[in-house]
């Protein structure tokens, strides 16, 4: 039923599909910069590659944020749910964690932004 040229076409088609999935659905690039936004204050920017711990004074109390080896996370939060801490390490371009009760968000951005805007 198949001619030899058909197998060649099928082969390349089946090769093309994974290529498309990997290139267009890939996990995005690693971020380079951390932006910390605090309610009613201008955003603060840090490099994702300077290891440091930052204490942020928010609406409820202090957030402790750690930047280490190209990743960033919340360590301490004054809120109840600790959703920001459970967000874990952020490293990819466009990732974001928020401590809403405290009015603090941490987001990672790269050279080209992966998203224009994000809704939750």
């Amino acid at each position, binding site marked *: *039923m198949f*001619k030899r040229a058909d197998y060649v076409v099928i082969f390349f*088609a089946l090769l093309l*599909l994974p290529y498309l999935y990997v290139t267009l659905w890939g996990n995005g690039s690693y971020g380079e910069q951390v932006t910390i936004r605090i309610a009613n204050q201008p955003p603060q920017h840090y490099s994702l590659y300077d290891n440091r711990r930052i204490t942020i004074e928010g609406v409820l109390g202090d957030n402790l944020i750690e930047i280490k080896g190209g990743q960033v996370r919340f360590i301490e939060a004054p809120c109840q749910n600790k959703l920001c801490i459970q967000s874990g390490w952020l490293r990819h371009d466009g990732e974001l964690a928020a401590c809403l009760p405290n009015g603090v968000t941490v987001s990672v951005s790269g050279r080209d932004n992966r998203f224009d805007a994000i809704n939750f």
Partner: protein
Amino acid sequence: MKLTLQTTQEDHRIAWLAALAIAIHIAESVLPTPIPGAKPGLANIITIICLMQYGWRTAVWVSLLRVLVGSLLIGTFLSPTFALSLAGASASIAVLGLASRLPGIEFGAVGYSLLAAMAHMAAQFFTAWLFFIPHEGLLRLLPVLMSMAVFFGLTSGIIAHQIIVRIKAGR
């Protein structure tokens, strides 16, 4: 004054095959689809049969007539849908023309069908991207759409092959 139109046997054949393709095209257009632009494209079967049984010229006629008459009957003539349809049909005919003229390489129905389906999808996608939705996000649809093109290309190719086998057997 009575006007008679001289028609050849080929004209009649093209009309019959185009009518068949248009019927499939319209039947398909009422199927609901999960993603815009994703449909089986079973009219492709007719194009492949035309190409393999009667040559590329017939395939071009049948394919373009299908796009034109199909859009007139559905009511999408000169709309974006029509532009996408025409772009897809033109690309698949162009690719089929090339593929059937490659020296020393002979494709079967499945190979032709797969090439046509992928060319159709690629042309449609990039027409949509360039003219209607010039947004990077659209690229995220391409893997899914291309998977469907490959799947339905293979399916129509197998169907076309079976039909050609039966035509040749004279059934």
